[in-house]
């Protein structure tokens, strides 16, 4: 395997809550790698820590109330991002690692034109002149498939539709040809037909530019279509990590399993009247009080005593090369307990 582009080790990002009721352990010991050119999907429901993970990589966590715990380690091309001086970090942000956020409405500055905002990174990082930056911005707009780029470059965000704003955001992120693009719910705020356009665009750009993508989403359908590998997060931890095809064929963590069963599927057989969806009982616990033992045990249909007392490590599923499919579940040591559901 190639040398990873990004290596995250034991990342812990905690928040001090306003209510003074303690510390929210939003991300609590997350380790993973991103290899050059691959798409890594991170899925999970709100509060699982996926967004905080992505923000921690570029140290965009508001401090206070948040802080990255000592002992955490984020290495990008051999350099620890957590110990870099602010100036060195800024040289990486937007240049080598770029981000696309969820909200195309609020992520653009309303008082600058699309061209100004796209070109800004090139001015900052590559010292381009305004004029050259504008030309590059037009090229980028063409690349992300915006019609009439020469005209659109001078438009303000409010003159663009939601889908076009998201394309502008992507153009902004890609202008310096980053090696890693972190896309945090890039299509969640968009309509289905526009989402399809943006996903198609991201796929094409990744192939053309050869960058790695971290795709953060709650939508299992989106990861299934785009990611090479998937990380499933729950309660601030990685609970399962596997190549996409394998994860969808054989989800081993009860949470992954339950999540997949509860998604309404367009490819499912026609529904029976008053048919029911599978559900995961209960709800995600608060980040200030994760349950002891396995954090999923209160909602898990298989849980036994050990799950309530002892926190499982990421165990190897034993398929393919070691470390390709890992699961945080004691079932891997006692597979007989995975009895069919009642």
């Amino acid at each position, binding site marked *: 395997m190639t040398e990873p582009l990004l290596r995250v080790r034991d990342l812990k990002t905690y928040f001090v809550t306003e209510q003074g009721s303690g510390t929210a352990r939003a991300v609590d010991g997350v380790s993973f790698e991103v290899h050059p050119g691959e798409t890594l999907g991170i899925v999970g429901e709100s509060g699982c820590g996926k967004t905080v993970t992505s923000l921690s990589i570029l140290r965009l966590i508001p401090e206070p109330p948040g802080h990255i715990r000592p002992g955490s380690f984020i290495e990008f091309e051999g350099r620890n991002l957590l110990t870099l001086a602010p100036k060195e970090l800024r040289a990486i942000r937007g240049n080598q690692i770029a981000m696309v956020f969820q909200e195309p409405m609020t992520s653009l500055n309303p008082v600058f034109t699309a061209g100004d905002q796209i070109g800004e990174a090139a001015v900052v990082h590559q010292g381009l002149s305004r004029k050259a930056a504008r030309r590059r911005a037009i090229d980028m707009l063409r690349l992300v498939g915006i019609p009439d780029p020469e005209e659109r470059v001078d438009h303000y965000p409010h003159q663009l539709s939601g889908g076009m704003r998201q394309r502008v955001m992507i153009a902004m992120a890609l202008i310096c040809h980053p090696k890693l693009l972190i896309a945090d719910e890039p299509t969640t705020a968009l309509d289905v*037909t526009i989402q*399809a356009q943006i*996903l198609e665009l991201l796929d094409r750009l990744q192939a053309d530019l050869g960058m790695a993508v971290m795709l953060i989403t709650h939508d299992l359908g989106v990861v299934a*279509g785009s990611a090479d590998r998937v990380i499933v997060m729950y309660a601030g931890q990685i609970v399962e990590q596997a190549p996409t*095809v394998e994860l969808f064929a054989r989800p081993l963590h009860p949470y992954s399993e339950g999540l997949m069963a509860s998604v*309404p599927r367009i*490819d499912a057989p026609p529904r029976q009247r008053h048919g029911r969806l599978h559900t995961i009982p209960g709800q995600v616990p608060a980040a200030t009080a994760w349950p002891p033992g396995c954090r999923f045990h209160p909602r898990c249909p298989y849980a036994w005593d050990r799950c309530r007392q002892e926190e499982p490590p990421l165990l190897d599923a034993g398929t393919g090369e070691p470390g390709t499919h890992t699961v945080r579940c004691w079932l891997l040591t006692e597979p007989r307990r995975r009895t069919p559901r009642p």
Partner: protein
Amino acid sequence: MTAALVQVEGLVKHFRVERGLFRVGRPRRLVRAVDGVSFAISAGRTLGLVGESGCGKSTVARSTLRLIEPDAGSVAAGPRQLRALRRRMQIVFQDPYGSLNPRMTVRQTLAEPLAIHRLARGAEAERRIAALLEEVGLDPTFANAYPHELSGGQRQRVGIARALSVEPEFVVLDEAVSALDVSVQAQVLNLLTDLQQRRRLTYLFIAHDLAVVKYIADQVAVMYLGRIVEHAPAAALYQAPRHPYTRSLLSAIPVPNPNAARQRIVLPGDVPSPVAPPPGCHFHPRCPHPKKNDLCRVETPRLREVAPAHFAACHFAEEPM
């Protein structure tokens, strides 16, 4: 089939766009939010109304309840007197954060409709609030909680309990599960199905996600730019969609199956502005149908029956794509 409980005929709602301070010369513009929408829902059944943002589905919902007065068209749903109507028709909103008054406890929220309609007071109200909470799967101790102390799913359950408190026959679910996480969404969808069975409720289920609608709707209507472009029994619509917009919408939904060999029809461009919809068929500038021709640019296709009980508004609805 049982008789229609709710019948909407030729609903029209146009909004005036306010002229800006510096645009005095321009004529007032009209947003054609809803442009002649008709449908009927049988008692105890669910109509799924699907479309992308700005297609007018929420305006249909609110006009049906007369939260917005429509410009034209009629809503036949029993009593004409508004307050009596309010008891029979209820609505559950999308945003579980915005749809509850942040300064009222769950008890106050649920007691209010009982007081408005003089349904119950004191101990009787207390008993009914507890029963409602139980019915939507919440512990009665939640009565003392404020909305900010609840999770999104719990708030949505409170919103459903509030709608049920006046014992309606017809409930509009306006993107009621769209803002929820997958596992919570499944819980709430199941709850809605149970409630429908138990209380013989009639639903107008509004959503942008055809996959979610598939689990709850008996009939499905697809809207595009203020008009219904296809309306059919759910099974027919999902298996053999006739309108090219429905087909692209179905193909655009990401499927949680990495091996799915699917042809995604990626529509070009954006939904046009409802201020100036394209002439003829509203969908023609984005339409991927190979037979698309000048007729589409000129003549608005009527919603017509292309198969038994299956309606589509496309000149070429009979032909394969």
